[in-house]
């Protein structure tokens, strides 16, 4: 009797461990269009409305807990924000004069730049978040039925939040900019120095702007914005000029200068976000399509094992 119980206990454990390993291996081995990924998307479609309802019902509870943290956080930031406000006011006055001339020149040369106006923003509510420090993802309540596609940029009122990783009909998973899968082509605002913003290794809450030219002059507090170009490993197209973060410190020791960046968007407290979708025939659509057909990008991504990600970059979901 005892032996039978022991054997059954061990058999159940072995079965569950083997099942987990089979799932793990199969999931890693298949492409983003594979069976297990499809099951996940199907599950997401079913769960999103439930999660949305639960999110609305439990919002007061979340707000109550969040209020304490927000109050403490706001008090600690007040002095610094006031100082920044004074600096920004002076900068805004100085730049207003130059802006007029810039628009005149733009019209004169018929320059048609990719900007936020080329996109159709879809407002979505964050209805879920991963508690794991290894996954910086959130679940939103808008999906392909609202025009959301894989790799669409996601922003909020503070700046860049991330990009759409998976989209189901009524929900989508967003990889935050602190996720190891995301890399954003960026530049220091007001300069031409570009690099790639990626999560800081070993720190899930901070970013690093790497691959900057050696002679780049950068100081603490400067703003980092999207450059509007595609770079490995991400190959996602973000419109230029979206605020990403502020320089917190500079690492001069590495061969390429790297800059530590603190994200402007409060990624721990996301409630409402906007997904920048594009309509067929728009400037953003044609650029995304062009980017997907670039042979160099495709080659590099395929050799890096990210073929599935690139394949969907040009055409969306």
């Amino acid at each position, binding site marked *: 009797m005892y032996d039978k119980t022991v054997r059954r206990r061990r058999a159940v454990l072995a079965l569950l461990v083997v099942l987990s390993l089979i799932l793990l291996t*199969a999931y890693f081995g298949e492409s983003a269009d594979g069976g297990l990924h499809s099951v996940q998307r199907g599950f997401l479609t079913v769960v999103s409305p439930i999660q949305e309802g639960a999110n609305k019902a439990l919002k007061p509870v979340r707000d109550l807990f969040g209020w304490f943290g927000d109050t403490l956080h706001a008090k600690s930031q007040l002095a610094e924000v006031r100082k920044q406000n004074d600096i920004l006011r002076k900068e805004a006055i100085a730049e207003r004069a130059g802006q007029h001339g810039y628009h005149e020149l733009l019209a004169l040369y018929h320059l048609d730049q990719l900007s936020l106006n080329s996109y159709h923003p879809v407002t979505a509510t964050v209805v879920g978040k991963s508690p794991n420090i290894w996954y910086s993802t959130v679940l939103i309540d808008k999906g392909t039925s609202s025009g959301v596609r894989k790799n669409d940029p996601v922003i909020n009122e503070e700046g860049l939040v991330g990009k759409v990783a998976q989209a189901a009909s009524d929900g989508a998973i967003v990889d935050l900019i602190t996720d190891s899968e995301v890399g954003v082509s960026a530049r220091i605002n007001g300069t031409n120095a570009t690099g790639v913003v990626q999560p800081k290794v070993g720190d899930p809450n901070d970013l690093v702007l790497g691959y900057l030219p050696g002679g780049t002059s950068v100081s603490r507090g400067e703003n980092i914005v999207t450059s509007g170009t595609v770079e490995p490993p991400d190959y996602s197209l973000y419109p230029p000029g979206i605020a990403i973060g502020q320089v917190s410190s500079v690492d001069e020791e590495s061969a390429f200068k790297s800059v530590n960046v603190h994200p402007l968007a409060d990624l721990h407290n996301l409630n409402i976000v906007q997904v920048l979708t594009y309509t067929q025939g728009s400037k953003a659509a044609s650029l995304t399509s062009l980017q997907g057909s670039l042979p160099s990008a495709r080659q590099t991504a395929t050799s890096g094992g990210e073929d599935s990600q690139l394949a969907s970059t040009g055409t969306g979901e």
Partner: protein
Amino acid sequence: MTLSGSLLTRIAVLVVVVVFFQIGVVSEVPVFGVAVDLSPLMVAFVGLLCGSTIGAATGFAVGLLVDLALVQTLGLTSLIFTLVGYWCGRLRELRDPQAALTPLLVGGLATAAALVGYSLMEFMLGVDAPVSLELLRQIVLGVVVNTIVAVPMWILVRRSLIGSLPPDPRRRRRRAYTTGGLSPLSKA
């Protein structure tokens, strides 16, 4: 311990409610910069109350649900939670700890095992993140925060399942001795 229909239903409801509450509310309220993770605590306490087999099966189900709902690497959380649930169940079967601090200790250890296990698996799967002080800080803070919420979580899990748990003969015997009712000394 045998799995009755009533116990299975209670565990299933508990798992679904806690996982969705975790994803929808708890994960969005950081404490000391980290999110409380109720999932390993729930798995550990189900194992501690119901034994190794049910603990392992609950761990597998919770992991699968979390991986599906958050579109994470399928099977990874299941593997770790299966081992956590089994280990907590074995602790009950071998030692049957009754101290008041048991939930705190088991909750902390289960969280630590889950976080370290997750980190090791991610390293093995090729995530580019060497061990850093910040990562260790996150793990330690995660364990501390989860240890703090371990007691209320223990009460919740215990109250949810207690009505369907079969009587434990060892505990009945122990209670009898403490009251003196069936002690051979009381006959004297």
